[in-house]
């Protein structure tokens, strides 16, 4: 196989700035196909290839699914790596911001279902995404939605002792992880997905904290401070005694997401936004929920 070159692509247009470099829209000369090129500068001598890039490339080589962004190629050229991705026009964040009217329920159902299908596939393949948020979900004109940005993802097939709690963008981070739970599993992505589910209705993030402690306070004020009865192991988490939150009664989901209206939707949302990770539903279970009965699967 002939290694791919940057010269194979033309019409480069800058479309964004990633963590490690510029992202371009480009055309593959030989096929006319539109792609996204993500540059990873290898400038830091001490760091070498960023571990986020190593993870993203290795995991995406393994994950091939209609709801996960496809990595076509990796190009090694002078002092940088270029990742060649399939091109999708927009991310969910920009889509939500661009909608003046409420997003139609049918559309929300379709996006949520596709999100869950992508997450379920990751979990089946023993991968945690760990950074689910609207900015990392790409959509196209056909209404397809794909999970992107696997830089924080990890596999959980092998028991590893080095696990970080600094995962998931604060607003989408689940309460158990905020309290210092290092034994998290697939439920970490379900909480984030639940937050995005609500966000598609209210068109702003559900919990917008400024620090981990403040984030927890926002969550408990809305969802109610969890009781030891409902979540016995919470007392063992380091943040529980450290923060010592007062007992907020919480609000109903109907108050938090007034535009939802659909009782099936509230039921599904309540299963995803469980403070106790053991009580959160799995992606597969969520996909079977009656909320999705009337959509094409």
């Amino acid at each position, binding site marked *: 196989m002939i290694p791919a070159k940057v010269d194979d692509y033309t019409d480069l247009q800058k479309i964004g700035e990633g963590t490690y470099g510029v992202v371009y829209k480009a055309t593959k000369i030989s096929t006319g196909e539109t792609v996204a090129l993500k540059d990873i500068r*290898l400038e830091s*001598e*001490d*760091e*070498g*290839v960023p*571990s986020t890039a*190593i*993870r993203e*490339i*290795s*995991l995406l*080589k*393994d994950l091939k699914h209609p709801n996960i962004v496809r990595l076509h190629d*990796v190009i*090694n050229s002078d002092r940088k790596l270029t990742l060649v991705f399939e091109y999708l026009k927009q991310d969910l964040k920009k889509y939500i911001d661009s909608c003046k009217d409420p997003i139609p329920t049918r559309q929300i159902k379709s996006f949520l279902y596709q999100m869950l299908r992508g997450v379920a596939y990751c979990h089946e393949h*023993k991968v945690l995404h760990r950074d689910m948020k609207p900015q990392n979900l790409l959509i196209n004109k056909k209404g397809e939605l794909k999970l992107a940005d696997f830089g924080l993802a*990890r*596999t959980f*097939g*092998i*028991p*590893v*002792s*080095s*696990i*970080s709690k600094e*995962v998931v963008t604060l607003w989408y981070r689940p309460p158990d992880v905020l309290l210092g739970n290092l034994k998290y599993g697939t439920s970490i992505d379900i909480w984030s997905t639940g937050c995005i589910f609500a966000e598609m209705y209210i068109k702003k993030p559900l919990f917008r904290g400024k620090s981990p402690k403040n984030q927890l306070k926002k969550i408990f004020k809305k969802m109610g401070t969890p009781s030891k009865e409902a979540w016995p192991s919470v007392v063992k988490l380091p943040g529980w005694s450290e923060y010592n939150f007062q007992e907020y009664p919480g609000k109903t989901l109907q108050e938090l997401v007034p535009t939802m209206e659909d009782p099936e939707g509230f039921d599904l949302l309540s299963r995803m936004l469980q403070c106790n990770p053991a009580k959160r539903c799995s992606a597969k279970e969520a996909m079977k929920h009656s909320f999705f009965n009337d959509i094409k699967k």
Partner: protein
Amino acid sequence: MDHLLIKLSTNISNLLSQLVNLCEDEEKDTNNIFSVDLPSISIHDYVQRLVDNLRCSQQCFVVAIAYILRIIKQNSNIFLTKYNIHRFLVTAVMSAAKFFDDQFYNNKFYATVGGIPLEEMNKLELEFLFLIDFQLVISREEFTKIFRGILAFENKQTTPKQPFPSRKRKNENIDVVVHQKNIQENIYSSHFQTKQICLK
């Protein structure tokens, strides 16, 4: 150091030594940046040095062996020799740590412990990632197999000295490949059962 780690590091040195002995007659491959003048430190001492100083999770050493075996399997022109084994090993452990561990040290640290200039370490990393085609995912099943295989590995010199023609003489590297593959298969098919196969 706990008992399991001692066993792991001893068996890894024995395994790598045996793989390298199969290519005793191979010369330094000047086209391969992993291949350098014969390092003064023995394989055994090098493994020990990495185990003692690299503060990555222990699993990374097992994963590193899986990566090295993958590379020789996927690249028919690459054999493990006394000229390249040191560099392959430290680069494999580093790649494993950067992929699996959430807290890991940077390349500078690996270069220092591995005794390799930083700039070289960075080149080795890139070369390594492309040689393995970025396939760093290891299933639990494969991990368990390799782990058991390493723990069960017996340091027998089963390798006859004679039948390996040097690349120069016959250009029949296929023998070497076959024999390195045999060891690889032994590692994978080990039926040795250990009671405690889970590294905490």
